[in-house]
């Protein structure tokens, strides 16, 4: 079992007490229901009726419950097994609106089924595409997930209207909500941190009523349908159109990449010593995501995807147990039978949503940055990371220009996350050209060569994008080795250093002609060391062993060879 980080109270495999699990599940369900606003935007853009809207709300709740259950359970290669709540994703919104305008909502839902099937197929090939997703590329994707939330978050937070005027009441509501969520995540002792978002949302609703951001009279409509009702979903009139296939497949690809980034974030927040993505688990997650998207189209709502806001919430609260996700699915399903809850939450005040998005975006941005800086960065990687983020920011800035593009291209370029991620993948592949995974260095048997060897591993480590921690161990081991060889005059001539790297291993071989390396196995007592301080040099072999994962001393072809193996 992986070691969970110190800030995580309930890790993915932990079983929190039932009452805690239930409260956390309610918190996640409330947040998921807020995002029903996206399919409602589709109904509004397509000129749908109130009946259409009610059908879409019910379909969305059922799909979120089903897809979340599948994703969190993670059984038989289906679902990641992480607390990754599925919601009706805004990624599908632009193409769905386009399709609805061309042929009605039935066309949007029919095409969404195909997009889901494409994601299912894509998930089967994902594990073979591991080299496309090194840690720094994943980091760019996660940073952009957070950054792309910033615009809609700040607009809602400030209560901006068409003329860019700030609504002071909206701002006050957002400020109260966010302050409470942040304060409860930082200062209180005990487990109150777990419920910071739920408490913040409740306070936000209260403040909205108090300050008149929501009309109390409008809330009467909440109980119009009664307190209990069987969920009914009118079957959509599914349609298919060839011209929309490319934009929907592109959207499915973007949604799958989004899921990849989200699940990698899940892995990272659950493992103290995270090194690289577990692509088998990620592809199981993308499979569940694809099935969820296909189910969305089948039931009549926009495509489902993993919600990054929920992942940020689980990280912020320190509760990432999959049981919370499974119970979230059950709570969501229950709300389908209690219309007032769904209606109330789907009318969440915009400034409260803004506060939640800012809270979530902050966690995603820093999580992505951590992924990026865990690796050594040379000029190629600096341009890959920086260039991709600039492209993503440009997509945010140049919305008017991008709107004029054809639909199929707009589905990619219109998403800052998608365009930055694809750019990072492309630049990573491009910059691999001319980077050899092997390198060698010949040094003279002088102490000055130690600096040369350290510089060699610094530059190669950065070119390979190796983990900084591993390169530091390599430098320590090779420095210790060279120092002893040189200090004890073991080498007759030059010393050769050869290194080979792949994503999983780093092997270093040091070769020289001369006397074998003194690899003393037994430890010296303090008395022995005090009697002769030069005896400390005989500890060299033991010191090298503590830096490397495997050390072999041998002498083929009349040269002394020390092979150092490092897990990466």
């Amino acid at each position, binding site marked *: 079992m992986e070691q969970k980080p110190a800030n995580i109270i309930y890790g993915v495999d932990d079983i929190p007490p039932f009452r805690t699990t239930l409260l956390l599940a309610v918190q996640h369900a409330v947040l998921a229901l807020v995002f029903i606003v996206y399919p409602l935007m589709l109904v509004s853009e397509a000129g749908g009726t109130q009946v259409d809207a009610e059908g879409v709300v019910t379909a969305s709740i059922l799909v979120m419950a089903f897809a979340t259950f599948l994703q969190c359970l993670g059984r038989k290669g289906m679902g990641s097994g992480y607390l990754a709540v599925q919601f009706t994703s805004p990624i599908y919104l632009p193409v769905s609106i386009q399709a609805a305008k061309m042929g009605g909502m039935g066309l949007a839902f029919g095409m969404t089924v195909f997009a889901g099937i494409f994601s299912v197929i894509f998930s089967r090939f994902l594990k073979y595409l591991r080299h496309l997703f090194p840690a720094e590329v994943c980091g760019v994707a996660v940073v952009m997930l957070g950054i792309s939330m910033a615009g809609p978050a700040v607009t809602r937070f400030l209560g901006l209207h068409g003329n860019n005027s700030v609504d002071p009441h909206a701002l006050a509501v957002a400020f109260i909500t966010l302050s409470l969520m942040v304060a409860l995540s930082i200062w209180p002792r005990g487990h109150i941190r777990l419920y910071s978002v739920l408490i913040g949302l409740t306070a936000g609703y209260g403040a909205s009523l108090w300050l008149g951001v929501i009309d109390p009279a409008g809330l009467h409509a909440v109980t119009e349908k009664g307190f209990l009702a069987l969920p009914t979903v009118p079957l959509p009139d599914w349609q298919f159109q060839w011209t929309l296939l490319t934009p929907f497949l592109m959207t499915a690809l973007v949604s799958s990449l989004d899921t990849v980034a989200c699940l990698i974030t899940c892995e990272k927040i659950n493992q103290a010593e995270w090194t690289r993505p577990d692509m088998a688990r990620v592809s199981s997650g993308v499979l569940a995501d694809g099935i969820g998207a296909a189910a969305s189209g089948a039931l009549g709502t926009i495509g489902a995807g993993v919600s990054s806001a929920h992942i940020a919430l689980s990280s912020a609260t320190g509760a990432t147990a999959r049981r919370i996700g499974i119970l979230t699915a059950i709570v969501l399903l229950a709300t389908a039978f209690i219309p007032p809850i769904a209606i109330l939450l789907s009318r969440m005040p915009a400034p409260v949503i803004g506060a939640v998005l800012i809270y979530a975006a902050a966690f995603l941005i820093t999580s992505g940055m951590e992924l990026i800086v865990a690796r050594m960065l040379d000029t190629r990687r600096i341009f890959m990371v920086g260039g991709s983020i600039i492209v993503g920011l440009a997509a945010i800035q140049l919305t008017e220009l991008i709107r004029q593009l054809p639909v199929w291209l707009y589905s990619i370029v219109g998403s800052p996350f998608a365009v930055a991620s694809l750019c990072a993948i492309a630049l990573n592949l491009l910059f691999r050209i001319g980077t050899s995974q092997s390198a060698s260095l010949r040094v003279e048997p002088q102490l000055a060569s130690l600096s040369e060897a350290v510089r060699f591993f610094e530059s190669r480590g950065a070119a390979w994008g190796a983990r900084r921690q591993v390169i530091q161990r390599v430098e*320590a081991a090779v420095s210790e080795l060279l120092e002893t060889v040189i200090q004890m005059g073991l080498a007759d001539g030059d010393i050769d250093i050869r290194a080979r790297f792949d994503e999983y291993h780093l092997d270093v071989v040091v070769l020289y002609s001369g006397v074998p390396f003194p690899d003393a196995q037994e*430890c010296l007592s303090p008395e022995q060391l005090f009697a002769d301080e030069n005896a400390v040099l005989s500890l060299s072999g033991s010191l090298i062993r503590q830096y490397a994962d495997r050390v072999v001393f041998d002498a083929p072809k009349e040269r002394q060879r020390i092979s150092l193996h490092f897990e990466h």
Partner: protein
Amino acid sequence: MSLITKIENRMPGCYVVKFIGRLDGTTYADSETEIASALIPETKTLVFDMTNLDYISSMGLRVILKARKFIEGNGGDVHTINMQPQIEKVFKIANLLQGMTLFASIKEADDYFDAMQKKVLDPLE
């Protein structure tokens, strides 16, 4: 790759040696020369501040060992402040942690020396 060695006389008979950088085959000789000024029979307490010591090799250990041998030979004590985990591992392998007090912070060491100074001055009052 460099090392800065700073020596501070905290009180009569007590020196603090601060390392910044890497103590290895390329830097040990200069460091040894610097420390020599504190290795006098009057020195009863020598403190190595290892807060900013990034790496120590077997030659670096030799520097510490030589200093310890001298101070303990003259009836004094050697202490360390804020030893980083990677450095502590090396000391553990070399069996050099025995007989040394490890302070977790400069404040902890200061409190210890204040108490020690008070103990020395108290009988005089």
